[in-house]
């Protein structure tokens, strides 16, 4: 574990140097990240301007939901993982996974943590300010309990999202040309910014596989709104741990079928 922390510290430094070299990249990523954050808030504002409640969530609840989405997914997840998953197809299709398999550390770690998009941290910061403002305007106190609950549930929410992406993208081992799978996963992320009841309203059984996605943002948001229940907590933590274990097992299984670029 100490070795992996040391490797990750080195990766943080290398990615920081990359930002200094490719400043235009950083500025572009930052601009589009902030724009997406603003659009998500404006869209929610417009959607709720004539309704006091949507799927049982009040206007304040929905604004907090959007804020938490921007913290967890738009900010933290995009910072730590998105760029790594974006290159998944590339790595497998071009046989670059060979080099990662030969390295003296876990391949899943190498694939998941290699790149860091620092511009996402700005969005996290702005989203925290926005969410704090919404909560204070609605006179909802941020207590130590709600903050710690949010932090822990946010961590498990991110674990669900990471595991879901990793499980799904592992299929690229068998279908290396499936680069649109990443586009599909970005679309599924977007569902998490709306109440979980939206998935139920769709009444389309295959979409039930997306049920874990609906918990990623909603449960931590409920922690801030003081409405989280024990069943929410147990469901999120249980699903997170199961999915993480499955992603690891499935990846190990899939590697047996990896045939490199010549396969």
């Amino acid at each position: 574990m100490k070795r992996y922390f040391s490797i990750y510290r080195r990766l943080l430094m290398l990615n920081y140097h990359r930002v200094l070299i490719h400043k235009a990249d950083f500025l572009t990523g930052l601009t589009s990240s902030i724009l997406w954050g603003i659009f998500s808030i404006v869209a929610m504002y417009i959607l709720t301007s004539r309704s006091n409640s949507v799927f049982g969530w009040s206007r304040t609840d929905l604004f907090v939901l959007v804020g938490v989405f921007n913290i967890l997914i738009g900010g933290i997840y995009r910072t730590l993982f998105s760029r790594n998953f974006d290159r998944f197809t590339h790595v497998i299709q071009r046989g670059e996974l060979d080099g990662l398999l030969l390295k003296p550390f876990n391949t899943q770690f190498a694939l998941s943590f290699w790149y860091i998009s620092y511009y996402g941290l700005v969005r996290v910061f702005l989203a925290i300010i926005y969410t704090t403002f919404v909560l204070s305007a609605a006179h909802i106190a941020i207590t130590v309990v709600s903050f710690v609950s949010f932090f822990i549930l946010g961590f498990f929410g991110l674990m669900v999202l990471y595991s879901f992406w990793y499980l799904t993208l592992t299929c690229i081992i068998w279908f290396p040309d499936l680069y649109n799978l990443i586009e599909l996963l970005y679309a599924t992320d977007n569902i998490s910014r709306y109440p979980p009841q939206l998935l139920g309203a769709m009444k389309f059984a295959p979409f039930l596989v997306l049920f874990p996605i609906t918990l990623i943002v909603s449960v931590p948001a409920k922690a801030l709104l003081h409405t989280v229940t024990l069943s929410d907590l147990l469901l999120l933590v249980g699903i997170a741990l199961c999915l993480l274990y499955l992603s690891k097992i499935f990846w190990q299984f899939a590697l047996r079928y990896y045939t490199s670029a010549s396969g």
Partner: protein
Amino acid sequence: MKLYFQVAKNTWDEMLTYRFNFVMWRVRNVLQLLTVYYLWLAVTPQNGQIFGYNRPLILTYVLGATLVGSIVFSTRTQEMGDNINNGDLSQFLIRPFRYLGYWFARDIGDKLFNLSFAVGELAIFFLILHPSLFLQTNIAFLLLTILAVLLAVVMNFFIGSLLGMIAFWSPEVWAPRFIFFTLVSFFAGGLFPLDILPITLQRIFALLPFSYLGYFPIAIYLGKFSSTQLVQGFCIAILWSILLYILLSVVWRKGLKIYSSEGN
């Protein structure tokens, strides 16, 4: 013309080759369609109005935005930047067709393929969900809608090509393209009708090309414009198409002068 038709057909065949990949793209689009549809269904009162739109109108707008988006925004012009950066443009310059004509033909092949699936998906959508929608019966409005969509296709092609030609000056093409499409997804009316915004913003958007890529065709279909507004809208859209074409021609000529065929 036969040559460009063959290019479009090859693009169609290419998409059929990677079928599963294309299915993923369509599943993504269906998911987005259903998300937006059920959201607006939840916020729109059954017998009331929201921003001057009753339920059939707003749901028609949402579905129309999806259909128009699948036609207008499906494009191959992102490959132009790679072509220029890795020197493959050299091969095209010695071939007996126009480079931009080639990419337009590829765009048409891509759009027709996406359109055929979008129509099928919407048909299944209607059969299963029976949404209450607005059906335009005025032939003039229907024809004008088609004309507006064709103008949007041409404008989006010019814009996409301009973004691709940034490659003549910079290896980083994805970044400006990414920001542009982030803005377009909002300002083209993909999320909500632009006429719900304050009147000052509406007037500004009416002068920019973005609203003609999505909102304008759908609003024509919904009968939202008077004759004067239709004429004004089409004049502005045609003017933007001409301006973009002139700009594209200038950028293409200047780009070719500095093109060094690196990597080839």
